[in-house]
């Protein structure tokens, strides 16, 4: 340990590795490249991971959509080809029978999955947009960004069947003058006046929707479109710890029972499992992280083998020098320590430079992708323990590989070495 902190030891090491600078630098680049790849790849993989997470941050990651389609198997006295329409009562039944469900938002819509878009008119301006009938519970599953001064639909709107609406950002641009405040103003939807209570800033984040969407209270929508107790689709959020795949299976089973659908009918219910997709993407991202670590580590090992190789050559070249050192009193252990320290030193230097370069490249990538919110890539980072782990591994491997040339150096017989001309 004493030799490790001795200035003279290091001077010896510097002067011997400084002998063939070009070769030393090239060797160091081998390891440097390895750790650089390790840092950049695993950082990028983390960036992708973060990016996907950001894409889903608008919606509960353990949620799913389910809707009725058309039966394909005759069952319970019904023939095939029957359209399935959910009812509001299904919501309570599902919540009662499946304890893993946290929230259910029943939704009606027109224009998205069928039906015609709503016609909005404000004075001379008009446009047609997708329209939804929603409960306030929706916002606990998928966040809505309402511009300042406005609000989303609330319980009171539902109870009083108020003729209020939340419009989209694009709707605002298309129907109003620039700078005009829409809150409290009235627009005609399919000929009926609605008061605007909020403007929704659309952020893509799983599930349907665009920046022109109009939201009405569910009960108002019922009256406007005469939908009765029917529900177009359900947005279900399970508790975070629930297995979303199992929850989906349970939901389908209950719905099939309630709507007299054959258990083997695969087409009667449509659905989209965000939780499952999220899980798959997360697994994909962690697979990428793993892969990048493997590539990085393999490259590091390759580089370190290169160091061992070069030191072996250098020991061969320095046979005579080592013989001289032995003759004037260097113990075999001192020779071994010197060669091993050379190996470790080169590895660590390469490691540190590689980490710095990798971090610089990652921060450059971060700068470049900062404003690209569509790209599933953000904030590429490598956890400090990973870096320290890699560095530690490098020191370990550097020591290990250094043993080979060190042993070779140690076994040099001073007589033979000095006889060599």
């Amino acid at each position, binding site marked *: 340990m004493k030799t490790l902190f001795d200035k003279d030891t290091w001077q010896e090491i510097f002067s011997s590795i400084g002998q063939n600078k070009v070769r030393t630098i090239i060797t160091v680049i081998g390891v440097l490249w390895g750790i650089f790849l390790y840092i950049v790849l695993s950082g990028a993989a983390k960036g992708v991971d973060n990016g996907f997470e950001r894409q889903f941050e608008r919606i509960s990651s353990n949620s799913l959509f389910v809707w009725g389609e058309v039966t394909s198997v005759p069952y319970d006295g019904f023939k095939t080809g029957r359209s399935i329409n959910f009812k509001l009562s299904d919501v309570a039944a599902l919540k009662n029978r499946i304890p893993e469900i946290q929230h259910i938002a029943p939704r009606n819509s027109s224009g998205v999955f069928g039906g015609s878009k709503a016609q909005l008119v404000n004075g001379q301006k008009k446009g047609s947009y997708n329209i939804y009938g929603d409960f306030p519970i929706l916002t606990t599953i998928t966040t809505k960004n309402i511009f300042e001064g406005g609000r989303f639909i609330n319980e009171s709107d539902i109870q009083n069947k108020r003729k209020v609406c939340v419009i989209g950002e694009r709707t605002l641009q298309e129907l109003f003058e620039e700078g005009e405040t829409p809150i409290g103003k009235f627009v005609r939807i399919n000929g009926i006046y609605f008061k605007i209570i909020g403007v929704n800033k659309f952020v893509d984040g799983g599930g349907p929707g665009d920046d022109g969407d109009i939201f009405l209270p569910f009960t108002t929508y019922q009256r406007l479109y005469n939908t009765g107790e029917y529900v177009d689709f359900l947005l279900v959020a399970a508790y975070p710890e629930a297995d979303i795949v199992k929850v989906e299976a349970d939901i389908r089973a209950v719905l099939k029972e309630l709507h007299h659908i054959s258990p083997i009918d695969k087409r009667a219910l449509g659905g989209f499992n965000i939780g499952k997709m999220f899980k798959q993407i997360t697994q994909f991202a962690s697979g990428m992280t793993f892969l990048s670590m493997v590539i990085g580590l393999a490259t590091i090992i390759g580089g370190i083998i290169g160091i061992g190789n070069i030191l072996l050559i250098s020991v061969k070249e320095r046979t005579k020098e080592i013989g001289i050192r032995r003759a*004037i009193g260097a113990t075999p*252990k001192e020779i071994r320590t010197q060669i091993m320290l050379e190996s470790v030193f080169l590895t660590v230097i390469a490691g540190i430079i590689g980490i710095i370069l990798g971090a610089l490249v990652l921060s450059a990538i971060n700068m470049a992708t900062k404003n690209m919110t569509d790209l599933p890539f953000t904030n590429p980072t490598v956890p400090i323990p990973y870096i320290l782990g890699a560095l530690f591994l490098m020191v370990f491997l550097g020591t290990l590989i250094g043993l080979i040339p060190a042993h070779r150096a140690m076994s040099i017989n001073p007589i033979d070495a000095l006889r060599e001309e």
Partner: protein
Amino acid sequence: MGKNSLQVLKGINFKVAEGELVAIMGSSGSGKSTLLNIIGMLDVANEGTYTLDNVPIENLDETKAAKYRNQFLGFIFQSFNLINYKSALENVTLPLYYQGKKRDERQEKALNYLEKVGLKKWATHLPSELSGGQKQRVAIARALVSQPKVLLADEPTGALDSTTSSEVMALIQQINEEGKTILVVTHEEEIALMCKRIVRLKDGVIVEDTLVNQKKAL
């Protein structure tokens, strides 16, 4: 031990007193280098004893041999054997480095010995910038710096012209005059005559051991 072992020395029995300057002579293959290697603890005899300054040199492992070499012996080689990327001064400090001496002490001692061999001005020069005679003088300074009991010189003038040879031998004589015990392996009669005693080896045995009238090198 190699596959073909060869008995080189066949019974050597000789003593060197403190302060002697002994030439070991013999044609090639006579065993003079092997003898020097055994004295220098670079090689070990199959049998027999070796006592240096009343210390029996036995059970030598590599580490022990290295320590003894460092403490007791100074080597001078035919081909100088300086480390070519180290300056004259650094070469001279090296034995002290392996003795674990402090840096300042090393520098000071090494400079003293470089001055002694007349090369203080050349302290920062690399071996490649020195002449043969200068290199050998650096090597002598290096051999002396650890204040060894015995100086072992293996053909110290073998690579030098006659004028430089004389200069180097004069230095060796001077060191001997100061009381250092020195063994010189040589095959040159002229060099041997500059010593005080000549031991002649032939086929692994001592055939002649005589005191001579030392001839001054310069």
